[in-house]
């Protein structure tokens, strides 16, 4: 979009601070954990400032020097503005240049936070508008090409001196000023906002503002604050202009034959580039803060300090620990542990070494190859793109494309080169060929293989480049055939539960037809429905949600009482299949469900018949399932962030310091949902397990066998063993086992399963020791201890563990060493753990 370039803008915020802005309003919060409506109180000014702060936060976030703003306040007790000064203190009273124009920063928002409605002054919004335009105009006197924007925020209760307003409009049009007027409780019937009970003043003013923007034309807009606050978080992809990187496209080699070799000067620019969510910084609350930061009013303060990353190096001090097999895996895990002691001498896993004493090298099996530079000499390569040959485009395997796409343009300054590249592009296009090429980014850089695909635009020709895999990058796994089944006797089997029947195939065909997205999109002007979904309208939910969260935390000082509002609807617009397709597919879907009869494999059912207590647990969970209040049609994927936000909101009263692991949170959530709305359990829940319901279980309700977990709650030991025998996912198995054990221990009826759990722990410990999951075990056992001895807890179970004693304590350094691993606890610490 070349029309509007990013940055090069001065935005003036004209804010109403008249006494009426101090009126208190109730603002809706995201629904509570049980779907109840939650609200909070704030003044209209605070509410409006949210909008202004979000706008300014966006500028801070983008960090452009050419994206600047200033703030003018009217209805202020202070009169301080250039127009008033120059007219010798005449007119333009109660208008204050609150923040002068500049690139906004932390201080800008802090200063806005300090803004309060005035006691009794009123100011004229049009005066303020003139001041804003004048201030902006002077600032941009030498920057004619910059975009000018003005945002007027008011409740419309104050008087407006609407005398020469047409002149103002003219002036604004003259300078191409964009004006946005946002009013508190203004009507917008089209969008469904109507506020019938309003003062006469307000009605008149509202009508005036509408006339005003109408005269301004397409650069003017008036809206209501409710909608503006929603729109301000509308996902907007950050426009990045790709730089053009010069390189050369070669066919043949000039050293070999200069007359024949072809070289075309080209420029590469990104066509797709993976954007990632902003990284959140890490903070921790200072513990001693309570005691010291007591200010004059005796108010207690909490200090959150930003954390910096520090890398420390340790070396095994013990002899014979040579074959330390798993530094990769283990290190990451060590982070997870509660390495509370900061006393380095106590670190059992070796002596700290300074980075200066370290030498770089590579591992070659158990041997090391020193390599002080961190890399060996690289292959000498020459910058450029070399074509190796051409092949038909239809033979290009789409799944081979490995990464981001690049445009390859001819040098934009050389018509000659453009004609040259254009002829090659058109030649390939007419033959239906693509080129295999190797790309060297700069002299000496690593070689990349890829494909050049001709791309003929309306007014320019170019190539598109995609990386393709090297031999090293392709994994040739074989998978059992889905169609050819052979019996033990070597005969082909024609009928089998794995093979779809004709009836099933027909049902699936009907389903595929019904769910076609080709004609279920939004209708165009002629009312014809086009395809549904377009990458250009699909926003990365993570990026925009994280951004929204960052902005939110910048404008509120307490997350628990002001949780993040729900995401903008555009962000989740493609999260559900379109209703039209679903409607069309209703019958084919019913048919499919019937003929395919897919069932979640629940080995637990058979087991439950044998062991009564398991059944009770099952039932418990079933009830929870049915009680989930915010269950929607889409609940099979979790009911979206809403329930998430709700759940986390209710953690607010907990001390933040002690909510440690996932396990605990999952549990909390479980308990939370188990509490109130005392909907009677549907009688159907005693029936056989309904497979579909199972698969629709919302997130968090059923952590034991939530999708993604490989250990279930019913027979964890068996699941665990099975997974180990399978050989894949040991780390995962151990991790899930830890979760499941902790979960069961803290649930009612845990006592009946104590023996079983002890067995589970024994098996888990053994595996941890043998498979070098030592850290996982040690973290688990200390966590379990603290959980058992905590408030809801289960001290009885810990006593059981103590009875077993040493065999369930920490894996000590000695033990670990026998299996070639390492551990941070000593034998002594291990003994102590199970004695207290």
């Amino acid at each position, binding site marked *: 979009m070349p029309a509007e370039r990013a940055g090069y803008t001065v935005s003036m915020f004209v804010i109403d601070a008249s006494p009426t802005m101090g009126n208190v309003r109730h603002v809706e919060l995201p629904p509570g954990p049980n779907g109840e409506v939650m609200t909070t109180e704030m003044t209209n000014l605070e509410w409006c400032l949210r909008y202004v702060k979000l706008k300014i936060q966006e500028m801070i976030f983008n960090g452009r020097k050419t994206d600047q703003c200033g703030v003018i306040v009217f209805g202020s007790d202070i009169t301080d503005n250039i127009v008033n000064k120059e007219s010798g203190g005449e007119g333009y009273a109660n208008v204050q240049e609150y923040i002068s124009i500049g690139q906004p920063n932390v201080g800008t928002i802090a200063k806005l936070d300090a803004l309060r409605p005035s006691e009794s002054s009123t100011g004229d919004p049009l005066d303020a508008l003139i001041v804003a335009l004048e201030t902006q105009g002077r600032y941009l006197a030498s920057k004619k090409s910059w975009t000018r924007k003005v945002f007027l925020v008011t409740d419309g209760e104050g008087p407006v001196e609407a005398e020469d307003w047409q002149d103002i409009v003219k002036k604004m049009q003259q300078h191409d000023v964009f004006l946005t007027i946002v009013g508190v409780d203004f009507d917008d019937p089209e969008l469904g906002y109507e506020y019938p009970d309003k003062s006469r003043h307000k009605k008149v003013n509202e009508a005036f503002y509408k006339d005003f923007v109408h005269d301004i034309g397409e650069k003017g807009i008036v809206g209501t604050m409710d909608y503006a606050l929603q729109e301000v978080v509308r996902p907007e992809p950050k426009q990045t202009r790709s730089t053009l990187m010069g390189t050369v496209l070669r066919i043949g080699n000039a050293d070999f034959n200069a007359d024949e070799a072809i070289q075309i000067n080209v420029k590469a620019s990104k066509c797709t580039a993976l954007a990632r969510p902003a990284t959140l910084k890490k903070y921790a609350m200072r513990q001693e803060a309570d005691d010291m930061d007591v200010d004059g009013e005796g108010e207690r303060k909490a200090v959150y300090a930003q*954390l910096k990353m520090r890398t420390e190096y340790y070396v095994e001090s013990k002899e014979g620990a040579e074959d330390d097999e798993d530094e990769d895996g283990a290190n*990451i895990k060590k982070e997870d542990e509660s390495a509370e002691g900061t006393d380095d001498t106590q670190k059992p896993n070796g002596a700290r070494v300074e980075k200066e004493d370290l030498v770089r090298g590579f591992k070659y099996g158990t041997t090391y190859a020193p390599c002080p530079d961190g890399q060996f000499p690289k292959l000498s390569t020459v910058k450029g793109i070399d074509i190796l040959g051409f092949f038909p485009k239809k033979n290009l*395997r789409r799944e081979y494309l490995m990464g981001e796409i690049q445009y390859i343009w001819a040098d934009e300054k050389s018509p000659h080169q453009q004609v040259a590249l254009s002829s090659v592009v058109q030649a390939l296009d007419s033959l239906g060929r693509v080129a295999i090429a190797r790309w060297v980014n700069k002299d000496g850089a690593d070689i990349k293989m890829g494909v050049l695909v001709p791309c003929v635009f309306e007014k320019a020709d170019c190539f598109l480049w995609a990386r393709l895999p090297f031999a090293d990058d392709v994994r040739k796994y074989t998978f059992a055939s889905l169609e050819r*089944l052979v019996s033990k006797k070597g005969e082909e089997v024609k009928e089998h539960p794995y093979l779809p029947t004709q009836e099933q195939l027909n049902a699936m065909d009907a389903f595929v037809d019904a769910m076609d997205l080709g004609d279920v999109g939004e209708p165009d002007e002629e009312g014809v429905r086009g395809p549904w979904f377009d990458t250009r309208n699909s926003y990365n939910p993570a990026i925009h949600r994280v951004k929204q969260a960052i902005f939110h935390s910048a404008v509120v000082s307490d997350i628990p009482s002001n949780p993040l509002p729900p995401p903008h609807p555009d962000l989740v617009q493609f999260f559900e299949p379109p209703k039209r397709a679903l409607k069309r597919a209703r019958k084919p879907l019913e048919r499919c469900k019937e003929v395919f009869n897919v069932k979640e494999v629940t080995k637990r059912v058979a087991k439950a018949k044998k062991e009564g207590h398991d059944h009770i647990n099952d039932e418990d969970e079933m009830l929870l399932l049915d009680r989930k209040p915010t269950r929607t049609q889409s609940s099979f994927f979790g009911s979206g962030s809403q329930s998430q936000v709700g759940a986390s909101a209710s953690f607010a009263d907990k001390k933040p310091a002690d909510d440690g692991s996932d396990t605990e949170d999952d549990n909390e959530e479980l308990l939370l949902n188990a509490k109130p709305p005392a909907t009677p359990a549907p009688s159907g829940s005693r029936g056989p397990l309904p497979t579909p319901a199972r698969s629709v279980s919302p997130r968090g309700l059923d952590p034991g066998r939530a999708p993604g977990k490989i250990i279930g709650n019913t027979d964890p030991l068996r699941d665990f063993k099975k997974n180990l025998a399978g050989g894949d996912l040991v780390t995962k198995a151990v991790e899930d086992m830890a979760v499941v054990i902790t979960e069961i221990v803290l649930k009612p009826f845990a006592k009946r399963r104590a023996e079983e759990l002890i067995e589970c722990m024994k098996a888990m410990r053994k595996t941890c020791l043998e498979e070098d999951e030592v850290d996982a075990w040690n973290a688990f056992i200390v966590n379990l201890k603290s959980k058992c001895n905590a408030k809801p807890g289960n001290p009885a179970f810990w006593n059981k563990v103590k009875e077993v004693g040493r065999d369930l304590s920490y894996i000590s350094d000695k033990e670990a060493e026998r299996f070639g691993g390492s551990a941070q606890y000593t034998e002594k610490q291990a003994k102590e753990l199970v004695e207290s």
Partner: protein
Amino acid sequence: MAPYDDDWTKIDDEDDEELQDYSIFEGQRDVILFCIDCSESMQALYEDPNDEDAQTSNLAVALEAAKQIQKKKIIAGPNDSVGIMLFNTTRRPDAKGAGGYASEIKLGTFLYQPISLLSASKIKELMLLLDAAKEDPEELVREFPPKKDRKVPIGDVFTSCNWILRDGAPKTATKRIFLITDDDNPHQGPGSEQLRNSARTTLIDLTQSGVTVEPFFISTEDKPFDVSKFYSSVLLPNNILDEDELEQDSSVLSESISISRIEDLLAQMRFHESPKRALFSVPLHLAEGFTIGVKGYALITEQKKGSYKYFVDTGGRMALANVKTVYVDEDRDAEVDKSKFFFGSAPGSTAASAEKEDDDQDENIGARTVKADHRPFYTAEETRAFRTMGLVPGFRLLGFKDAGDLAFEDNVKHAYFIYPNEMSYSGSKRTFSALLKSMINKNKIALALALMRKNASPVFCYLLPQEEIIDDNGCQIDPPGFHIIPLPFADDIRAAPIQEAFRAPPDLVKSATEWVDKLKIKTGTYPPDSYRNPALAYHNEQLEASAFRDEYNPEDFEDETEPPISGIHKKAGKLMKAWKDTLANDESANIVSVPTTGSKRKADVSVNEAEIRSYYDNGSLEKLRVDQLKEFLKSKGVAVSGKKADLVERVADWFTTN
């Protein structure tokens, strides 16, 4: 991108999804036991096709392949273990011979290299043996005398393998046996039925303890390997019908049988080098209440160089330094436990709260002060929900589109592959199979919303149906399943920076068509197997030389990605020259400079090549202005940094080579 560019320890494990792809594999270990037949036919000598003066045997080739695989694995998976067991040999363990359990394993089998972590010395041992065999072809026969009378029962072979793996391999590693033999019927005559049964039962034992047997059968023209004679009844058939026998569908055997000529043995092994590991196992929701299980694999992933590690000299011995990342409150110099983290925006963009009055309180820089019971930051759990949007891992089908709707440029990362998982939802296979068929018939692709792992973010992706393709020998070329193509979001799409450019006239296009048509790739498609990553190979060769303390000679390195220069010129040189001539006469050559849209005025720097060449010929390049030199260099894609002297030199260089 080379992993060296950034210190890998700095990568935030929560934020970098790509990293997780690898960490899953890193935690896993792979164990391979080579199990090689040493019978007389395996040891029969023949002319080495690669070396006129030398003789070789199937055994030597098999050992050579084992060595190559070891060399590859030692770099790709330094934590993997390998062992070599030989059978049909009369060699018995001697004093220096193989390990403690050598006495236990069955007669006629010999453990040449016990299962252990890979090391340079282990490979060296094998190299020395093979070198000796090359000098004197009888060496192997002396080392491992073939058993002349009866063949060792295959059951005994499997039993020995089982014992060796039981004792030597970590329990949770993926354990595989590479069985190499040329004998398709080891048990003939009386008692054969019994031997066959025992082979079968011992194999089931093996499979049940999580071991996979991957046979590599050597076939020759004179003596084709007939699986049906013996092995097909021993090796478990495809898609075993008795599920009780085998719960893990990943252990299905015959999908991985390979029969090849001895020359292709190594290539065959390469295919099987890395064990099949699923990246994720998640539900695929076709619609509400209609869900199947799938497992996901990364069939295409960039294989990177290993990252370097830190070592410290502890008095003559190099010890590996463990890297630990801690987070500290720097002002207090206090390490903070991960569970106590909160997350928020960088202080630069955060409001110092209004309550905070004292701005120059140095101590609190980078800190945020709020009322005691307030929390201005998010918990880890809340933060994760922002990224996952509260979804749980899985695929949600959104609908179907025409196959043509997936554009080439809708790509940001490598594809994944999914295959049904009957173990999580019964009926997954038939449903998946029906969906696959239906989509292939209708030429459709499916749009889905996917959250592949717990810590990932949701992405939209297309499911491309992949039909199973089998070659003439019944070997699978393409497996059945769906390729998953993750799609770019609007946020990832960049606008085309150039809207308008000069285009070629038809005669020039026609001229280009002629040479393009000559330069066809023989295979008719992109052959990934032909291109080993030269950067990786170059690195690995140097690493290997360094580990063996050999001198590395860069001259020996062969770059498979070199363009076939002489071939190109031979096939199309004349046509290329014709095209160049047509281009030179094109009127566009006379357009000096395009009017630029930039508003800044620039000095006229346009000098044409001929003009600069004349300066060059006169040796007076330094008379040109710096901006002119730069302009010229820029147009040739050469660096424009440095002093004027550097620029002059570079221009001169360019004319010398062109």
